[in-house]
């Protein structure tokens, strides 16, 4: 009995988490420590990237474009038109970077996920924590982006910008969960370069971030309207220009939320299959 008692004392504190969220919270220190290693590089690039974009696309390229509000979805200048598009595109590209190679590394290269799931942590907790980190990255990058652009006078209201910030998190999630799911089931990394070239780049260029999709052929415009980035860009733009169409807001939010949720279930399923055999 004395021996049992000692064993009980010794393992005091080592427990199964009470929920997926509690489990994910235990991974906070891991992600914080891992980020501490790379934050300088990512902080600099998240500040410099928007500056370069604003200069090149907004100011220099925009100088050639006459700001006709009727043709720029109500923006008074090209810069005001392209700024929200670039923020939303930045949310997307950040996600692509965070849930492709890094996810494969956690499974296949350094296998950190296998270490995590050997403990009381469940697969959903592991996925949730990783997504939490991705959202943190999207949040910081987009916050900096918005702050850098604010002095250029491209935002109609503070409330709009704050709302736009939260929309970036939603866009981030809508991309993160399905791409995560895709990466979690992948056997090798060769598909990623296709994902970037044939997935991310066309989305980036043709989803209404840089020009109104009404400039596209009708069928291409319809295709663009079906992409998550267009929903994100349009929603962000409505908020920064303060020209809200509430029914469209509802459509955009619903689209992105459903995608994020469906992707979540898919991601948990794909990673479970990979980890538990």
């Amino acid at each position: 009995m004395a021996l049992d008692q000692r064993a009980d004392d010794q393992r005091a504190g080592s427990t199964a988490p009470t929920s997926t969220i509690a489990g994910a919270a235990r991974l906070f220190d891991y992600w914080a420590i891992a980020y501490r290693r790379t934050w300088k590089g990512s902080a600099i690039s998240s500040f410099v990237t928007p500056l370069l974009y604003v200069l090149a696309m907004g100011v220099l390229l925009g100088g050639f474009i006459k700001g006709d509000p009727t043709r720029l979805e109500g923006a008074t200048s090209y810069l005001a038109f392209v700024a929200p598009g670039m923020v939303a595109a930045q949310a997307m590209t950040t996600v692509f970077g965070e849930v492709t190679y890094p996810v494969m590394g956690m499974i296949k290269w350094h296998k950190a996920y296998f270490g995590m799931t050997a403990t009381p942590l469940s697969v959903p907790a592991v996925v949730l924590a990783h997504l939490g980190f991705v959202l943190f990255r999207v949040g910081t990058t987009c916050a900096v982006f918005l702050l850098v652009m604010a002095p250029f006078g491209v935002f109609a209201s503070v409330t709009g910008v704050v709302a736009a910030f939260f929309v970036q998190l939603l866009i981030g999630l809508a991309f993160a969960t399905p791409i995560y799911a895709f990466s979690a089931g992948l056997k090798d990394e060769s598909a990623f370069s296709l994902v970037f070239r044939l997935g991310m780049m066309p989305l980036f260029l043709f989803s209404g971030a840089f020009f109104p999709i009404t400039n596209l052929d009708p069928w291409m415009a319809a295709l663009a309207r079906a992409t998550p980035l267009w929903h994100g860009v349009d929603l962000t733009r409505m908020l920064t220009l303060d020209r809200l169409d509430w029914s469209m807001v509802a459509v955009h939010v619903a689209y992105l939320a459903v995608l994020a949720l469906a992707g979540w279930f898919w991601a948990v399923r794909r990673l479970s299959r990979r980890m538990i055999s």
Partner: protein
Amino acid sequence: MILARGLRKSFGDFEAVKGIDVDVRRGESFGFLGPNGAGKSSTMRMVAAVSPISGGELHILGMDPADDGPSIRARIGVCPQEDTLDTELTVRDNLYVYGRYFGLPRKEVRARVDELLEFVQLTEKADAMVEDLSGGMKRRLTIARSLINRPDVLLLDEPTTGLDPQARHVVWDRLFRLKQQGVTIVLTTHYMDEAEQLCDRLVVMDKGLIVAEGSPLTLIREHSTREVAELRFGVAPDGDSHEALAEKIADLGHRVEVLPDRLLVYSDDGEEVIARVHERGLEPVAVLVRRSTLEDVFLRLTGRTLVD
């Protein structure tokens, strides 16, 4: 601590574990000995509650892994065959984050990390990156990591595979200390010397089945002779094949095993066997008399050697 009855594991059509019975008691050190592909690792993964069982019964610390996986994993320590350390974190951080996965308070984890670094002799390497460690150091770090929750059972899957002899001895020494502290240890290995050094009791596995069970000593006593005479014959141009040679000396021991490079004669007096071999005019290029080991037990039971 661990109870398995008719435990099975299959992957599609392939049956890795074909119905095994296992009992591991508190405080003992229990081994699964067998060659690669015997089903040892599949068994370990089921016991570690990360791989669902395909059939039979399995209870770990009185719990069913299908229902209580997280609670079981909270109370066991796992040292997997392949290191799953985060190579870009420091030694200390690897242990620290792992302790947090078990829900231990930060202060408590920090204290345990220092203690464990000391135990596995990595205190000086605490702030080194894992990718800069040697294989033996990584193994010790993985062992330290598996102890962070002060587990009731420690599972070690091939703890010294891939290590050089010196590094293996350091690992063995640490494991032996744990054993002395009363930690229940379950390990798999295909090294018979490892099994002999560390296991109070072991099962010999082959092709998904248990072929023998007992302490290293009883297994050797039951399935082999006291000594073994090893005879190496050169390749004689007109000479006899190994099989023919074996027939000539078959009566000298209880049994003769023919291996590709040598003959093993099982007898209680090896020197005597060698003297008689010479009397018969046979001239082996090298001879060796040794005690029987678990390797001989395995050879006897399966007709194959452990490490191919």
